[in-house]
């Protein structure tokens, strides 16, 4: 189908429009309500997210043929892949807003701007998941990045939040600049910015000898700097521990899940649609490069996580490692690999957000982000400790928790392509990761607290906790989530 023109596209663009409208509405409402009632703003933004979800479902059903549609002259594309990520991102944002409502660290700061920024960044991520044009890719990435910088530095009275923002933007700006340079090179080689055409164009010039494979590889590497930065892959991961540690916990959770998911959406679309064709693969096998990056990413993430004392920082490294696992799937270019990534992202969403939620709760109640602060949690707050243990073991990949099934589909896909070495590295990393996750469990269960008073939480807290914990237990055991990804392809 030909790309739709601007006005025709608007209907399919409604989820994004709703987000922007609500972002504006949130800002306006913020001016109207008193400081005490700032929760209303949060609820409004939740409504916005809900409307957006409804719009996604409606537009999806509007498109009866389920064929991918190109919108706005091919700037973005609406397909199952994009829809999947949009829903995933909406869930992550919803969770983040709920976390923020309960986070004492953000309490004084909860202004309309905060929620507006969250809506805006979701908007940017939607675009990341659906961009099919080099310019759109860059703009959406920048939208997300800029908003992330602001959110990371949102606690202006906290030095470490500012520091996080500073490091984030320093690394981020260089990375995006590098990426833009790479994009310009690709643009110069292909003569077009349209991702769908780039593939055939580059293949043509490669075949005619107009471009050396080295040149394409360098360009890809430059682009990878930007995307790799977003998904925190080695060697563009340096920012992430500092930023994760410094940023407010809900934002850390958001960055580690949503930002990473959006990054992977972009990554997959860019590499699969743009450079995954057999013609290109013939001359440039960038997969080996990525496989090595993937192996390094998980190894570095896991090894660096081992000695950490700060749970937030530990989870930051853990999320680097998980990025590495996900990259394995991205290397493959097979439907199995794609399905594995999608499934893993669902699982990762629940278990990682759940873990961060517990971090929020403990930071609120026990006032500590350090592992020592988790001592004796099993007796002080048995349910929270139990949920945390579930999340952590799921992150490790222990059956019957969902994390295991996520890893299972990933390794299955990897081995299916014959990359035994990569699977081995990944699996050994899982074993290593057990050690540091278990340290938190050890503190919670095997050690006794200095302050034996039990912590009390509201029923809402437990409800939200179970929203994450229950899927973490059951997703893998149910049939439906495996078949879900059958419908989503990138070709």
């Amino acid at each position, binding site marked *: 189908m030909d790309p739709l023109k601007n006005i025709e596209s608007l209907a399919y663009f409604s989820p994004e429009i709703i987000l922007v409208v609500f972002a504006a509405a949130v800002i306006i409402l913020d001016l109207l309500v008193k400081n005490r009632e700032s929760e209303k703003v949060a609820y409004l933004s939740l409504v916005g997210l809900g409307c957006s979800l409804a719009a996604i479902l409606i537009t999806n059903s509007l498109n009866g043929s389920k064929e991918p549609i190109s919108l706005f002259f091919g700037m973005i594309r609406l397909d199952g892949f994009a829809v999947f990520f949009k829903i995933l991102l909406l869930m992550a944002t919803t969770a983040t807003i709920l976390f923020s409502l309960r986070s004492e660290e953000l309490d004084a700061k909860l202004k309309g701007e905060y929620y507006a920024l969250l809506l805006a960044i979701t908007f940017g991520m939607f675009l990341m998941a659906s961009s099919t044009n080099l310019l759109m890719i860059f703009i959406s990435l920048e939208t997300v990045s800029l908003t992330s910088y602001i959110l990371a530095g949102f606690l202006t009275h906290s030095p470490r939040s500012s520091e996080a923002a500073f490091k984030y933007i320093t690394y981020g700006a260089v990375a995006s600049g590098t990426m833009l340079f790479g994009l310009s090179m690709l643009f110069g080689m292909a003569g077009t910015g349209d991702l769908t055409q780039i593939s055939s164009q580059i293949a043509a010039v490669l075949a005619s000898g107009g471009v050396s494979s080295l040149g394409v590889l360098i360009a890809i590497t430059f682009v990878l700097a930007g995307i790799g930065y977003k998904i925190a892959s080695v060697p563009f991961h340096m920012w992430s521990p500092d930023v994760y540690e410094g940023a407010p916990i809900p934002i850390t959770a958001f960055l580690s899940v949503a930002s990473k998911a959006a990054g992977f959406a972009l990554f997959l679309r860019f590499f699969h649609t743009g450079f995954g064709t057999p013609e290109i693969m013939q001359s440039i096998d960038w997969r080996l490069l990525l496989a090595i990056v993937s192996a390094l990413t998980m190894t570095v993430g896991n090894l660096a996580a081992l000695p950490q004392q700060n749970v937030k920082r530990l989870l930051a490294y853990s999320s680097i490692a998980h990025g590495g696992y996900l990259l394995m799937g991205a290397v493959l270019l097979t439907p199995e690999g794609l399905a594995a990534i999608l499934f893993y992202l669902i699982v990762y969403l629940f278990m990682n957000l759940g873990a961060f939620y517990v971090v929020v709760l403990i930071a609120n109640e026990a006032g500590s982000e350090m592992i020592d602060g988790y001592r004796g949690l*099993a*007796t002080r707050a*048995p349910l929270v400790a139990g949920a945390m243990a579930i999340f952590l*073991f799921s992150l*490790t990949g*222990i*059956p*019957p928790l969902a994390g*295991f099934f996520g890893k*299972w589909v990933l*390794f*299955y896909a990897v*081995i*299916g392509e014959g990359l*035994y070495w990569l*699977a*081995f590295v990944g*699996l*050994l990393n*899982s*074993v290593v990761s*057990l*050690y540091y996750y*278990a340290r938190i*469990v*050890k503190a919670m*269960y*095997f*050690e006794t607290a200095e302050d034996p008073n039990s912590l009390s939480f509201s029923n809402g807290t437990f409800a939200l906790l179970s929203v994450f914990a229950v899927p973490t237990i059951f997703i893998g055991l149910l*049939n439906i989530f*495996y*078949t879900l990804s*059958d419908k989503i392809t990138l070709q």
Partner: protein
Amino acid sequence: MLLSLMIFVPLLGMIVVLLLPRESEELIKRVTLAFTLVPLVIAVVLFVSYNRSTVGTQYVVNVPWIDAFNINYHIGIDGLSVTLLLLTALLGPICVLASWRNIEKGIKAYMGLFLLLETGMLGFFAALDLFLFFVFFELTLLPMYFLIGVWGGPRKEYAAIKFFLYTLFGSVLMLVAMIAVYLNSNVINGVTEGVRTFDIPTLISLAGTEGHALADSGFQMWVFLGFFIGFAVKVPIFPFHTWLPDAHVEAPTAISVILAGVLLKMGTYGIVRINMAMFPEGFAIFTNGVGFWGNSLALLGFINIVYGSFCALAQTDFKKLVAYSSIGHMGFVILGLAAGNSAGINGAILQMFNHGVISAMLFLLVGVLYDRAHHREINGFGGIGNKMPIYTGITTLAFMASLGLPGLSGFVGEALSLIGAFQEFELLTILSTIGIVVGAAYFLWTLQRVFLGTLNPKYEDLPEINKREILTLVPLGILTIVLGIWPNFALNMFSESVSNLVNALSAI
């Protein structure tokens, strides 16, 4: 249906226990006991009603689970699994009874985790789908980790994480091998056709099909290794054994019982069920192949026997001694399995069951002593035979069974394993008999140091073993004697399945 009920009743029990109020400890214990008795009853029913004359699996349930990977909830029992199910189900209530008084904190969580553990173990022995098999295999890890880590001894954290890491390392290799098997399960003569499968019986028959990718001996060798290392950690086979003494020493009594009684058997069961049945070519490479690796499996068995026995001899911690003796005794299992003939395999399986019973007794006995004296230093006792005659009597029975005294069950398994192994590896088997002598040495020495000689004045008032403790020991003691006198009682459960296996192995 009966089988599924048996597997999931403990899980249901866990939920029930978790819903009970934390304060009503007696109620929790009773409920747990009830929920562990149900599987026992079912296991006995299965054991009795199992048709011993046929080879195939019985009580089969096969329903789709994860369609995307053609994973089924496929369970069923053959003679081997029903025997181990009985063992597991028997140890369940015994362990609950053994935990009755000496678990001081968090009884609710303890019992809940224990029930979860039992589901994992029962499911493992009944699973006939490779994926399900793996999931159940791993399902035992989590509860075990907590049970050791929370209720363990002074170095519990270290022991728990070591146990966890070792086993996880092994299962990771297993996972790779499992995926490889799955991926090759629809490749015949280089052509991919049909759907892939995890179904163990199907895979076994495919692996015997000429030209099938699974039947390729090079492939089988690697896959065999993957699975083998996974199971070897669990057994544990030297050099993957170092987690075991730590775990045993730190774990509470009942958990040691489960660990030695059932968890170690999971490793050897896996070797029989997967490695030998599915990869006979690979098995042949490591048992009667050529070159350096030719006899490696038997060699490992031998090392286990001798190393375990000598280490046990050097221990002064009662529990550690029993733990090392476990390593030694599992060596006989490996040796018997490596023989690959009917005497060897039957002996090995019988030894699995017997060791389950006997080591359970030993750990219970250690626990009884520890509860009274609060230490386990062998040299710190002496002469208590006079104070605790019944305890001494039962201990002597257990020791004698463990050191392979004829007339008690330990002998039959050991002897059959050795007789089988001798037909294949004469020298190694002869050398392995060192283990018998050393086994007698450390047990007798322990008996002497703890029970004989003059009474250590510290233990003037040592109370005799109580009724509840006797109740936990008597069923095991009876089994030890009955199986020693009439081993066919267990052997004819699985001898048909084994001869089937032997035929398959000898066809290579």
